[in-house]
C-alpha cells in the first residue's frame, strides 16, 4: 500500500478529533467498571474491575423496567409517526386536491413553532383525559403525523415516477392500494430513516417524561437516569459509579441501533438536509 504522505496531516488531525468525540464514551464504559474512588482516574483499563456497579444499579433502581418502557414508548412513537406521516405525505404527493398547496404551507409553517407554545394546553388536554402518569401522552400524538417527516417523505414519494401509479390505477388498483402496494414498499429506506430518527428522539427525550410521568415504575431510561442523579444530589452522597453505569445502560441500546443502521442513519442525515 502506498502511504499517502500528502494526506498525513489530515489523518493526524482527524484522529485527534476522533479522540475528542469517541473517547468520552470509551471513558464512560471504563469508568462504569471502576470502584468509586477510581472513577475519575484516566486509566482506560480499570485497575480494579468492579462490574458489580451494574448489579448495584439494578438494586437501586428498576432499570429493567425503564429499559422496557423506553423500548415500548420508542417503538410506539416511531411506528405511529412513520405510518401516519407516510399516509399524509402520500396524500400531499399524489393527489391534486383542492386546498392542497395552502394546507401544505400550513404543514411547513408548523415546523417553526416552538414546542413551548402548545406544551401547556396539550398537558391540560391529557390531564382532562386522565392520562397523566401513563405513557400514552409520550407517543399518541405521533398517530397524527409530524410536519418534518411528512415533508421528508413527500419528497421521496414525489420521486416515484407517476406512470407507475397510473399503470396501477389502470390495472384496477385503489387509492389506498397505490399507497400500500407501490409508494410504501418503494420508499422503505426513507421509512426506515423516519423510524430510526423518531425512535432515537423518543429514547433521548427528557421533557415529556418529566411532564407526564410521576411513578418511577413508568419512567423511561433518561427520566430514570435523571432520577438517580437527583437522588444523589438530594442526599449529598454522590455515588458516581452508579450514575456512570446507568448512563452506559441508557447509551448502549442507541449504539447498538447505530451499529446496525449506520449507513441508513448517516445517509439519512445527509439527505434530510439536502431535501430541506
Amino acid at each position, binding site marked *: 500500500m502506498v502511504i499517502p504522505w500528502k*494526506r498525513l496531516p489530515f489523518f493526524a*488531525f*482527524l484522529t485527534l*478529533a*476522533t479522540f475528542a*468525540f469517541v473517547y*468520552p*464514551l470509551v471513558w*464512560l464504559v471504563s469508568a462504569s467498571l471502576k470502584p468509586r474512588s477510581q472513577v475519575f482516574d484516566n486509566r482506560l483499563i480499570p485497575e480494579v474491575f468492579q462490574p458489580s456497579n451494574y448489579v448495584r444499579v439494578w438494586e437501586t433502581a428498576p432499570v429493567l423496567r425503564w429499559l422496557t418502557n423506553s423500548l415500548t414508548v420508542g417503538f410506539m412513537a416511531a411506528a405511529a409517526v412513520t405510518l*401516519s406521516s407516510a399516509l*399524509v405525505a*402520500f*396524500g*400531499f404527493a*399524489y*393527489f*391534486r*386536491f383542492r*386546498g392542497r398547496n395552502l394546507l401544505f404551507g400550513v*404543514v411547513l409553517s*408548523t415546523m*417553526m*413553532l*416552538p414546542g*413551548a*407554545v*402548545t406544551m*401547556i*394546553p*396539550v*398537558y391540560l388536554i391529557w390531564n382532562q383525559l386522565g392520562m397523566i402518569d401513563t405513557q400514552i401522552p409520550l407517543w399518541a400524538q405521533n*398517530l*397524527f*403525523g409530524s410536519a418534518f417527516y411528512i415533508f421528508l417523505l413527500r419528497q421521496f414519494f414525489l420521486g416515484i415516477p407517476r406512470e407507475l401509479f*397510473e399503470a396501477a390505477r389502470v390495472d*384496477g388498483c*385503489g*387509492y*389506498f392500494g397505490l399507497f400500500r402496494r407501490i409508494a410504501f414498499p418503494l420508499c422503505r429506506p426513507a421509512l426506515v430513516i423516519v423510524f430510526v430518527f423518531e425512535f432515537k428522539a423518543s*429514547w*433521548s427525550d*427528557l421533557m415529556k417524561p*418529566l411532564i407526564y410521568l410521576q411513578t418511577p415504575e413508568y419512567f423511561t431510561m*433518561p427520566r430514570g*437516569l*435523571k432520577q438517580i442523579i437527583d437522588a444523589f*444530589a*438530594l442526599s449529598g452522597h454522590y455515588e458516581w459509579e452508579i*450514575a*456512570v453505569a446507568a*448512563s452506559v445502560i*441508557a*447509551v448502549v441500546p*442507541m449504539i447498538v441501533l*447505530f451499529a446496525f443502521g449506520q449507513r441508513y442513519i*448517516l445517509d439519512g*442525515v445527509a439527505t434530510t*438536509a*439536502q431535501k*430541506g
Partner: protein
Amino acid sequence: MATTSTPGSAPAASQDVGAPPGPEVPGGGNGAAPGGGGRRAGRPRRSPLAKQEDRAGWLFVLPWVLGFLIFTAGPMIASLVLSFTDYQMIQAPRAVGLENYRELFDDPRVLKSLSNTFVYAAMFVPIGTIVALFLALMLQRVGRAGGFFRTAFYLPEMTPAVAAAAMFLLLLNGQQGLVNKVLGWIGINGPNWTADPNWLKPSLAIVSLWTLGGTVVIYLAALNGVPKQLYEAAELDGAGPVTRLFRITIPMISGALFFTVITNTIAAMQMFDQAYTMFYGPQQKASASEESLVYMVYLFQNAFQFFKMGFASAMAWLLFVIILLITFLQVRIGNRYVYYHGER
C-alpha cells in the same frame, strides 16, 4: 396520463366511477355517483374524477389535519388565551389582562434566562458551524477513509442528552475531571467548569459541541455535491486554497450552512435537557447559579413546578416571537448570500 391503450380501460371518467377492486380508502365514497357536479354555479365545473381526487386527497391528509386542530391550532389559541389569565390549575383561569406580559419584563429571572440563552446560542452556533465545517473539509480530503471518521463523529449524536450531560458533569469536574487533566498536560489550569458561575454556559456549549456530528455529516454531503470542474477552473486561474475556500466552497454549500445555522439556532433557543440535567431538579441545588438558568428551564419551572400556567404561556409566546424574529432576520440576511443549485 399514459398507457391508456389497455383494452377495457375505457374513457378516463367512467374508469374512476367503476369502483376499483382491492383495499380502498375507508369511507372514500369511491363508487359514489358524481352528485352535485354542477350545483354550484359560478365555479368552474369539476369533473367527477377531480372531485373524487379531492375527497381521497383530503382523506389521506386527514390524520394530520385532525392532529393539527387538536394538538397545534387548538392549543395555540388556548395558550394565547391562557397567557392573559392567572391559572394555577386549582381554580378556573382568572383574566388578568396584560399582567403576565408586564411581569415578563419585571421578572429579573426571565431577562436573565433570556440573556443566558442568547449567550449560550452565541457560543454554540458560530463555534459549532466553524468546527463542523472544518471537520467536514478535513473529512473530504481523506477520501474513502472519511467514512470511518464520519461514523466516529456522529456516534455521540446517538447519546441521549441526559446521559451526555451526566457524563460531562464528571468530565468537566474542576478537580478531577478528564478535561482539566488534559488541559493540565499542555500547561493550562482549567476552570471549575460546572461550579464557577462564569463557566456554566461554556460547559453547556461544550456538551452541545460534542453532539455536533449531524452538522458535520450534512456539510460533508454538501461538499461532495460541489462540481469538481469549478476547482479545476479556479486552479487554472491561479486561485490559492484560501481563495477557493471562500470563493467556491463556501458559496456553493451556503444552502447547507444556512439550513444548519437556522435549525441549530432554533434548537439552541429551546435548549433544556442538558441544562436541566446538569444544574436543576427537584432538589434545586444551592449551587444552581442563575448563570445556568436557560429560558426553557425557567419556563418549565413556572409551568410544572410553580404551576403558573398563565405566566408560563406568556413566556412561551415571547419565545415564539423571539424565534420568529431571529429566523426572519437570518432569512433576510441569508437570502442575500445563499446560492441554491438551480433548484428553485
